[in-house]
């Protein structure tokens, strides 16, 4: 690696390989940039905007911007974390998130990020959208109430499983949702399998395996043990 291939992240020197994005280089170095839709195994989606950083004074998404030598990147500043908190609140009000009754609690990236950024309330009035649950599949339950539109399941099903079980469709706050690849729109009518990569990619509690409730008790789950910012390397699979 060329010695000049470094940039500053909140004053810390981060090395990078040419072609790496800011978040890839930061993650490889163990530095946490908050994110929801980015996953180290997949190409960036750039939709959640949690990873918004300030590069040489201008806003940009750390998951899509390539690292350049000498960049000065602001990350965990009060200004940016404040914006991220508002974005998190937006997620919480646009969906129906009830952490105490959610099987994903403790393993949920949305919840863990909200703790990390000290989000104390949803702040805005809730939208209470009507999002039906799909229990048609023998092994998998889909609870769209928790969907954050990250598209990771879309990408995983397409790129790893080669199945295209999911696609993002519709427009705007009312329309945008995951479309299922069957005429009925039900997962049970697709070739989706519990062993698919897409079945284990959901960062929140939409894609759940049936008959596997609370196998690890609350209190001993991933983000119960350490905050998400302290587990950057571990999330790389």
């Amino acid at each position, binding site marked *: 690696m060329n010695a000049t291939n470094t940039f500053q992240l909140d004053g810390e020197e981060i090395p990078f390989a040419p072609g790496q994005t800011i978040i890839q280089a930061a993650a490889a170095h163990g530095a946490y940039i908050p994110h929801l839709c980015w996953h180290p195994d997949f190409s*960036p989606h*750039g*939709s*959640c*905007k*949690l990873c*918004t950083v300030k590069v040489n004074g201008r*806003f940009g998404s750390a998951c*899509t911007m390539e690292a350049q030598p000498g960049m000065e990147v602001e990350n965990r500043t009060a200004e940016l974390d404040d*914006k991220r908190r*508002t*974005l998190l609140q*937006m*997620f919480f*009000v*646009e969906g129906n998130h009830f952490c105490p009754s959610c099987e994903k609690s403790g393993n949920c990236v949305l919840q863990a990020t909200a703790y990390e950024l000290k989000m104390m309330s949803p702040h*805005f*009035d809730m*939208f209470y959208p009507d999002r039906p649950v799909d229990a048609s599949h023998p092994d998998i339950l889909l609870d769209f109430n928790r969907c954050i*539109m990250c598209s990771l399941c879309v990408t995983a099903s397409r790129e790893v499983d080669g199945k*295209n*079980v*999911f*696609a*993002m*469709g*519709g*427009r*705007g*706050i009312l*329309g*945008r949702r995951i*479309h*299922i*690849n*069957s*005429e*009925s*729109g039900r997962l049970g009518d697709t070739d989706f399998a519990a062993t698919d990569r897409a079945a284990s990619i959901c960062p929140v509690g939409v894609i759940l395996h049936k008959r596997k409730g609370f196998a690890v008790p609350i209190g001993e789950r991933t983000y119960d043990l350490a905050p998400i910012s302290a587990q950057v390397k571990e999330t790389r699979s």
Partner: protein
Amino acid sequence: MSDTDVIDAVVDRHRRDGTRLMQILREIQEQLGWLSPATLTRVAAAVGWPRAMVSGTASFYSFFHTRPRGKYCVLWSDNITDRMLGNADLMEAMCKKLWLEPGRVSEDGLVSVNTTSCTGMCDQGPALLVNYRAITRMTPSRVGEMVGLIRDQTPVAEWPAEWFAVDDNIRRKDILLANDLVPGQALSAALERGPEKMLAAVKDARLRGRGGAGFSTGLKWEACRNAAGSGTAPARYVVCNADEGEPGTFKDRVLLTSYAYLVFEGMSIAGFVVGAKKGLLYLRGEYRYLLEPLESTLAARRKNNLLGKNILGTDFEFHIEIHLGAGAYVCGEESALIESLEGKPGRPRIRPPFPVTSGYLGQPTTVNNVETLAASCLIAAHGGEWYAQHGTEKSTGTKILSVSGDCERPGIYEYPYGVSVRQVLEDCGATDSQAVQNSGPSGVCVAEDEFGRRIAFEDLPTAGAFMVFDETRDMFEVARNFAHFFAHESCGFCTPCRVGTTLVRNMMDKIARNHGSPYDIDELFKLHRLMQGASHCGLGNSACNPVFDTLNKFRPAYERRLKSLDYEPAFDLDAALSQARQMTGRDDAGAHFAANSEDEAKA
């Protein structure tokens, strides 16, 4: 012909090519009325795409119906200029006469009535679309007649022809609209110059994009020309952005109506310069009625050897296709437009790469505004230096403004860049104006003390809209109309825009109900700061502009609605009972929360 025969004929005509999905879906819907689940399954199988992708596209566009729609689908244009011309009362009258709730299909499946974003008829509103055909100048008597025709199930094709008349209303011509070029003249001048010299002329002219952003056309063409195509079939493309969706803008409609040859000629010149063989014109769905006239203009050009192979006896080959949009403002963003051209939802791409290196089908693509391409013909015919003599130093040439709102002579005005807002107001017969919304909702709201400002990239850049508001207008309601527009048009891809536009809309509605407080104003500013920096594309970045501008320049319009409290909850107990009232058919005092609590207080 059975439904499956219709579907098969359409997909076959489009060579079962998934990238033509938008046109496939539109043509099927024109014949079958809507896109049923079985239709989407059949189309997906025919083009070899996952069904979820096909339904994802079908559900993205407002003009595609994945549920049965009425035999007559009436959509009232709901721009602020239509509002000012009384569209709300007319639509209410229509719904009453039809015993219909807005947005619902009547029980007998006959008709639905709803609103749609600006249809580009602001100088001749109130406007509407009936089965996606444009109708202008609605009046109470026309509403009555129309309801009669709908009830009698008279086919739309047999409705009075004058209802469908769309006027150009050209009020001021300058070098572009008063040009004396004959078809082929500019193109043959370009061919004579050769691509390098033609490119140099465009650079000498310092032509900048007319879509509002003002990027140098010469640099864009040069970057596209220099970019290598990729894959086994490398190519370059010219795309004409005729998705004129910015509310209050209608100059491209006039160019495509009366100057279409110039637009196609500009596309051909661009193709010649960048080395493209194919051009695509993306026409907004609201202008569906222009498709046939445009196709016949293309046919005439082919016949006259101005399109096709060996154009004007040279070895230059260029073809033009027209693609229709289907009601999505975001497709005006060039990378979203390209996604749509490829048959996908109009979601702006991550940039870089920019379209000039990786655009349509991953190939170098120049996307230019209708007016920019038309202007390039003047440069081809008269040279770059001649063109640069017009306008200002940084904004050469002329700009076509779409003037609407409170003025005597709404319509099309072409000015050299540098004209003052005051001059335009004088020319269009606007009196007692308090504000001009320049360049539409995503532009700038100009107040009276700024009327000396000039239309130019260095002062007030514009995509063309020029909406005038006189002192009787409520600028809060103007901003609220725009807030609703952005919430409806947000593609939903990124969080700040998807949720933020809805939060802004809700807060504006709360203030409109006299439930706002100074706290809500602070919240609006906070959302503006977030959305402006963090959104994925220009839509989200500019979605708060009208709220921000009116808050700064017309603060009293907000303040007189605010309760003198620090905080007022958004949740309204009485409003929450409205559903129960509707279900029980009650609206008496006892069915209202305020009345109950007063009774309790007395007791």
